[in-house]
Every structure is written in structure tokens, then in C-alpha cells.
């Protein structure tokens, strides 16, 4: 028999048992659909994370103060006060691989304007080089200046979220907001930056000269920072090595002494985030594959039942001239027809589900041709694998016994 004839025969006999065929397909349909949807979600998530990391700016490093300890008692990461604004200035001056640097001093306080109040997620003291390092410009007005920093002026730049929350339709420029009950003049509004890789609203931010934050808001005379944001020229790895060397020298650390700061590059963060989302993708795909396996077992089960039910038919076909391999091909092609049809339906459903997820739940999905190809190949393989044993049982029947079967 030709392949076409065998396939026609298979489809016809499947159509004779529509409900059963449909139910058998269901397992594979769900399996394939979930593989495609899950992989699309996983890949969407990882590309979203990469986009968000890119919003941090290019070639970024972060220098954090290390852990301070006294008498064997550690105060934890960031508690050391040895990392200062002056360190930052020295880095820009002396390390050729560094393009720009911005100190970050974190504060948290309520802000007020008119009758409204708000506590921004992020309130930072920094310098004008912040725009350069973070690749983040002002949309309206201008950023505060070096002069504002040196004279600790009470000026600030706000993010879009704060502009919308406190000022509604008004222009915030040159308005006075009160931070810790002190008046600050809004000189600029930042561009919209969106959500960070950690899920934080980056536009919920107030930036002020670091000197103002340090002296006025925190009442401190020191210049230690919570973080130095560094933008490297080309290689973040080179910048990281150079900065480590310079800081060891400035902090007078002996050859064997541990460093009292930490350097983290965005590349490392990106790698970590991408890896974790890849692990998630693989995990989801594995779970979905299990449902494919279950679907395959369902096909095998139904095919075995069908072979027993159709014993007389098999006997008759053999009596009128079907060889073992004709019978094998007939049942195998039925199994393949089931799984391939189910695979195609599953693919359509999976793509539909992925689109629906990004449309309704606003979860980013990325449908890859690769996952569709793999899913299709898998569904064919499931048909062959799980259809073969029942088909072999049919092919090995003795025609006389089969015809006598009640």
C-alpha cells in the first residue's frame, strides 16, 4: 500500500470514532500547547529582564561599601563608612578606563506639595554626572548643577511618577515641595524609565545634590556614600580591576587584607538574572513535557484497546491479503495521525495562549520558531514511539485466531 492510501485509511478509521479520537488527542494538545506557551513566557521574561537591565545604562559598575566590623562583630554589607565621594573623584581622575562616576546617598522621607504627601521609593543625593552614568536625561527643565552641589542648594529633580502624583496637570518646574519639612525647588523632571529588573518603579524618584542630602536631610558632616555608580569606557572588567587597585591604595589595605568594598557589574547582574529565567524556562518546559508523555501513554492505551476491538478486522484484512507490515503501517499511521493532528491543534492553541497571556495579563511572551519546531517534532515522535507497540501487536496476529475472535 502507498503511504497516501495508508494515511487515508487511518484518517477514515479515526473518523469512525470521533469522540474517542478527540479525547485521545486532548493529552497531546494540552502538552504541546503548554510547552509552547510556557517557553514563550520564559523567553519573554528573560528578554524583558535584559531590556530592563539595559535601562540601567551601558557598561555600568556599582561600588558598594563593604561590611564594617568591630570586636569580631560584623555590621553587615554597606555598614563600612570608608567609601567616600572623594574616592569617586579620585577614580574619575586617575582611572583611565572610567568615563564618569556618580555618588549615591540614599535617604527616605515624606515629601509634600500643596495638600498632598508621598513617600518616594527612592530618594537619592548625587551629582550632575548621574545623568551621564545612568544614561537618563531630564525631560523638562534641567538637572541641578555642580554649583548646586558645592553650595548645597535646596533643589531637586523628580521622576515622572512623582510629577504625576503630586502635580497632576500642573508643571512642577520651579514649584516648591517640602522634603522633611524643608523647601526644595523642583528644577527638572526626568524622562520616563519604567520598571527595573527588580520590579521597582524607577520613576518614583527624587534626586537632590548629595551635599544637600547629607548635610540638610541627614545632618551628617561626613562624605561617605551608599554607592558609587561608575560608567566604564569599554571593558567593565578592566575598570573593575583598576578601581580595586586604586581603592586598595587609598584605603591603605595591606596585600593580604580583605577589601572593604564590593564591585558589582551590570553584566554579572544580567548573567545572574538571565540564568535564573533560563532555569525557569527549562523547568516549565520539563513540566509541560511530562504532560506530553502522559498524552503519549494515552495514545498507546487507546491504540491497544483499538487493536483488541478490531481483532476481527485485522484478521479479515490479513485474510484478503494484508501483510504484517501493512497492518503495522495502518495502526502506526493512525497513532501518528492522532499525535500530529493533536500537535498542530496544540501549536495553534499554544500560540493563542501566549498571545492571550501578553494581551490580557500584560506578561511579555516571545514565541520562538524553535519551540514550535521542537514541539511538532516531539508530537510526531510521540506518535511513532507510543504507536509502535500496539501496531506491532496487531501486525503479529495470526489471521485464523484473529478471525475467530469474539
Amino acid at each position: 500500500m502507498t503511504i497516501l492510501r495508508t494515511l487515508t485509511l487511518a484518517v477514515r478509521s479515526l473518523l469512525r470514532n470521533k469522540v474517542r479520537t478527540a479525547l485521545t488527542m486532548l493529552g497531546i494538545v494540552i502538552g504541546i500547547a503548554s510547552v509552547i506557551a510556557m517557553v514563550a513566557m520564559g523567553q519573554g521574561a528573560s528578554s524583558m529582564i535584559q531590556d530592563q537591565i539595559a535601562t540601567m545604562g551601558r557598561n555600568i559598575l556599582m561600588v558598594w561599601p563593604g561590611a564594617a566590623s568591630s570586636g569580631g562583630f560584623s555590621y553587615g554589607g554597606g555598614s563600612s563608612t570608608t567609601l567616600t565621594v572623594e574616592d569617586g573623584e579620585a577614580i574619575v581622575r586617575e582611572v583611565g578606563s572610567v568615563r564618569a562616576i556618580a555618588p549615591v546617598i540614599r535617604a527616605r522621607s515624606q515629601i509634600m506639595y500643596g495638600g498632598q504627601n508621598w513617600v518616594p521609593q527612592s530618594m537619592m543625593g548625587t551629582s550632575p554626572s548621574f545623568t551621564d552614568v545612568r544614561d537618563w536625561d531630564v525631560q523638562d527643565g534641567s538637572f541641578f548643577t555642580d554649583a548646586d552641589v558645592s553650595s548645597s542648594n535646596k533643589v531637586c529633580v523628580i521622576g515622572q511618577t512623582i510629577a504625576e502624583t503630586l502635580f497632576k496637570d500642573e508643571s512642577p518646574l520651579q514649584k516648591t515641595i517640602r522634603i522633611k519639612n524643608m523647601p526644595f525647588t523642583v528644577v527638572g523632571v526626568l524622562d520616563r524609565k519604567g520598571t527595573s529588573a527588580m520590579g521597582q518603579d524607577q520613576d518614583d524618584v527624587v534626586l537632590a545634590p548629595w551635599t544637600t542630602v547629607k548635610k540638610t536631610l541627614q545632618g551628617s558632616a561626613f562624605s561617605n556614600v551608599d554607592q558609587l555608580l561608575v560608567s566604564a569606557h569599554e571593558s567593565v572588567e578592566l575598570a573593575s580591576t583598576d578601581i580595586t587597585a586604586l581603592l586598595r591604595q587609598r584605603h591603605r589595605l595591606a596585600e593580604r587584607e580583605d577589601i572593604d568594598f564590593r564591585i558589582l557589574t551590570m553584566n554579572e547582574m544580567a548573567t545572574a538574572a538571565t540564568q535564573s529565567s533560563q532555569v525557569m524556562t527549562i523547568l516549565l518546559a520539563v513540566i509541560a513535557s511530562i504532560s506530553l508523555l502522559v498524552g503519549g501513554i494515552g495514545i498507546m492505551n487507546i491504540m491497544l484497546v483499538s487493536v483488541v476491538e478490531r481483532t476481527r478486522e485485522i484478521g479479515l484484512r490479513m485474510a484478503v491479503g494484508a501483510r504484517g507490515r501493512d497492518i503495522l503501517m495502518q495502526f502506526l499511521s493512525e497513532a501518528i495521525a492522532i499525535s500530529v493532528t493533536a500537535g498542530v491543534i496544540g501549536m495553534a492553541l499554544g500560540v493563542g495562549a501566549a498571545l492571550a497571556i501578553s494581551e490580557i495579563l500584560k506578561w511579555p511572551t516571545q514565541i520562538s520558531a524553535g519551540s514550535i519546531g521542537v514541539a511538532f517534532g516531539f508530537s510526531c515522535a510521540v506518535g511513532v514511539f507510543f504507536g509502535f507497540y500496539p501496531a506491532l501487536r496487531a501486525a503479529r496476529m495470526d489471521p485464523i485466531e484473529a478471525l475467530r475472535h469474539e
Partner: protein
Amino acid sequence: MGEAAGAADAVPADEMTASLIDIENVTKVYHLGEVDIVPLRGVSLHIDAGESIAIMGASGSGKTTLMNIIGCMDRPSEGTYRLDGQDISRVNADERAGLRNAKFGFVFQSFNLLSRTSALENVELPLLYRPGVSSKERRRRALAALDRVGLSDRLNHHPSQLSGGQQQRVAIARALVTDPAVVLADEPTGNLDSTSERDILAMFAELNAAGITVVLVTHNPEIGKHANRVIRIRDGRIVEEP
């Protein structure tokens, strides 16, 4: 019966010339665990092309085993079987399938039609397993076979929509569609009323008149009478006629 005996005399058992079917000293043994069942013990039988033969015997006499061997459904444990002069005693399952398709048409007591399948498709079935027959040719030959058994107006009926007699006629059309040399019928009227029985037997007589060798297997002497020659079989041996 005189005529039948005469025909038997015309082809003596020891002569090995131009018979269509030459079965020589065939024994069949089935091993069931530790017990051996021997349905055929040294049977010799020669059937010429164009003969009409009834193989008769009680249930368990070995007549069905003999028919299975004649129809290449089974092969002898000992002895030789020549079909058209070719020794096919030891051919493998695939070759036997090919021989069944090329030489034989089967008619069963329980019709063995595929349910939920039209009469036409049932009749086309054997041609699916014959290489080189186009779907057009298949349809044409199935239509001709159904016309021959008088069922041209029931082409798209399913077996459940047909009477027993009609179902058996579809089965006969299915046996004829391959233009077989031999039609083998195992108790073809066992499930039918007497009117249908007459119809079916008349149809076999007609086929025989058209040159097809007909082998009927039955336990019913009334049906045996319709054959030109009657072979009686008891305990796996061919016995002389009474």
C-alpha cells in the same frame, strides 16, 4: 452423488498432473503446552480448476483446518501443498498473504464485514492490498462485483442497514473483486434463513458455471448436495463416501 463420485474417479489421488490444488499427505499439528492437537492426519486432496467441492464433516473433524491450509491461511506441518504446480508448503507469512490476495476469495459464516463502512468500501478492501491498482480501478471493479451479486442499489449502505442475505452477498462481492481462481466458503449459509440460503447457494452455482472453483465447507448434508463432489472428513482423515 453418482456424478460426484465419478468426478473423484476422474482425478485419482496419486496422479500429480494439472490439478489446481494438490494436497499430498498433509498433517497439521498444534502444540498447546504439553498437549499436541492433530486436526489433520495425512490428508491428500486434488482439486481441478472449475470444480465445485463440498468438504463435509462434524465440528472438530478438521474440515476448517483443511480449508485454512487450502486458503493459505495456515501451512502444513508435514506433507506438501502445490498450488498451480508451485510448491507452497513452506512459504512465509508475507508470501501467503500475497497468494491469498491473488488466488482466493473468502466467504465466512459471520460475513466479517467492516461495520460503519459502506458496502462499496467493504468490497474495495482486498484491492487495497494489491499493488498497482489505482483508486479509480478499485472503484470500477468493486462496482462491477456488487452488480454481479445484484446489490448495485445498496452501494452506500452500511452492514447494519442490510439483511443477512444482503450482507453475505456483499461478502461474496468482496471475494470476487480480485478475480480469484478459488472461492472458499466456510459455512456460508450458517447464519441465514432458508430463502437467503437458496439465494446464496444459487449464486455459488452461478460462479462455478462461470469457471470459478468453489470450495464449500459445511456440516449440513443438504448444502453438500449442491456440490459436484463431496469430500467427507472425520478425525482428520478423508473417509470414503457412504
